[in-house]
């Protein structure tokens, strides 16, 4: 899951995948806009065939938090 995140993140920003850790912040560290972030989650929805709730994801600041959230969705399918 984390590897897929890293791969998809690189569709939005020029980042070294090896430098992305669970503590990496989307906006502050990666320079994401809020729409980049939403769009990334949309890609992950398609990738893992889950439905993300927009209201629940606005507070996910780090890659690790987003991975945890997605993992819970996938395991609850």
């Amino acid at each position, binding site marked *: 899951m984390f590897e897929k995140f890293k791969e998809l993140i690189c569709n*939005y*920003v020029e980042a070294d995948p090896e430098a992305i850790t669970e503590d990496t912040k989307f906006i502050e560290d990666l320079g994401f806009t*809020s*729409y980049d972030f*939403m*769009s990334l989650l*949309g890609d992950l929805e398609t990738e893992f065939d889950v439905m993300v709730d*927009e*209201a629940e994801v*606005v507070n996910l600041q780090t890659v690790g938090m987003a991975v945890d959230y997605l993992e819970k969705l996938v395991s609850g399918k």
Partner: protein
Amino acid sequence: MDKNNVKTLYDLVKNSAACYGERVFLKEKNGKDIVEKDHNEFYEDVLKVCGFVASKSEGRTVHAAVIGPTSYAYLTAYFGTVSGGNVIVPLDAQLSCTDICELLQRADVEIFFYDKRYEPMLDQIRISCPAIHTYVPLQELSETVSAFEAKEPESISPDRLAAIVYTSGTTGKSKGVMLSHGNLIDNAMCMDNESTEEDSLLTVLPIHHVYCLTCDILLSLRYGCCICVNDSMLRIGQNLKLFQPTTMLLVPMIAETIYKQIKTAASAKPDVPIKAIADAVFGGKLKVIYSGGAYLRPELAQAYMELGIPISQGYGMTECSPRISTGDLNGSTLGDVGIIVKGCQVKIVDGEITAKSPSVMMGYYKDEAATAEAIDSEGWLHTGDLGYVEDNRIYITGRKKNLIILSNGENVSPEELENKFAGVEFIAEVLVYADDSVITAEIFPSPDYCKDMTNEQVADMFRELVNNINKTVTSSKTIRRLRMRNVEFDKTTSKKIRRNQEIQGDLI
């Protein structure tokens, strides 16, 4: 549609049914299914809501608020309310419960149409807003109004108030822009041949913004194009492929993101022409993108042009319903914000763009002082933007006001956020600004109060304070970057902090 027959929003809905009848007006997702509604159905459902609102108003004019994402039910609530001469108050779906209560009170709302996701707020709203006597979840609107006859309402004057739209203000308190039927209809009718009934659009912007209402909804009713509802900001990519729109209204931030995705895909597949990749991303039928709400980089406009999808950039403000100028691809210079719309006059006064047209608002609701400040005695609306006009095209050079315009088009008043730091002992001075579109608070700590503390201790207090402040504001106003400096800010002679000064503080 003969625009001479259309003077009010009701006329627009009625004429769209007469002209486009069984053509699809709107498509939206319901789970995995797509639901379609035609223009006749929309007209009939609007009349039923109109009858329902009339039954609750006892002959008076009532104000009804509506909150939620774009949906068929949202639009029937909106047009049903205004068709009978009542007033709609569209609220920002991202507002906190406290802000919603405040606006419901200030706008004298009596009827509340809400998406069910706001149900947890209802207890607080009932306590704070005793004037509201009718609550209708949008998901149950159809059943609620089913017993009402689809009867034509009495005709109303185009000068009648249709909507109160709350917008950010420089003083920190949002102002209620009063738009009449005539204002909105003028803006929807000011240009010609913008679309055809063969067009379909994906509506992605927040529906409480007049930009979305006029350019997505009113123009679709006028030209008979099909509105496809984007169900979430997460799913623009999926919905573009699903609905295959021919046009789209965007803010620059979304256009930037989509372009980045196309470029990345292109570099991963060097053998595939980039235009083919763009076609796949946009669904294959997109002809033009309309952009507004924030600054569009000319380089981005050029990049889209090379993909074969021109971006047409316009300019306006809520107070002008909203269009002052509109994108015109013929002869665009990539630096302008479009040609001035018909019926609108633009005059530059001391560098500031002022506009006069039938689209200019009636004023701010219950705020005569602010109205007098915005519209001068000769009827010119002062936009607060600096710029010039050349060959009937508007060029923007800056903003007179201090409002922070984020790249997603949201307006944030720095004073409103700075006021939240007032009285905090460890802070001597604070300035809030946008740094690369990220809302940033920079402080100069009080040397006296902090004399026995380490920088890290002060930084911790600052972080905690901002965390608490962020809990009281909507997500678009969240302070996400913090800076701390060890020298005072540069000030004017009247001891006010200069807004446009070099960033000196260190990131913390």
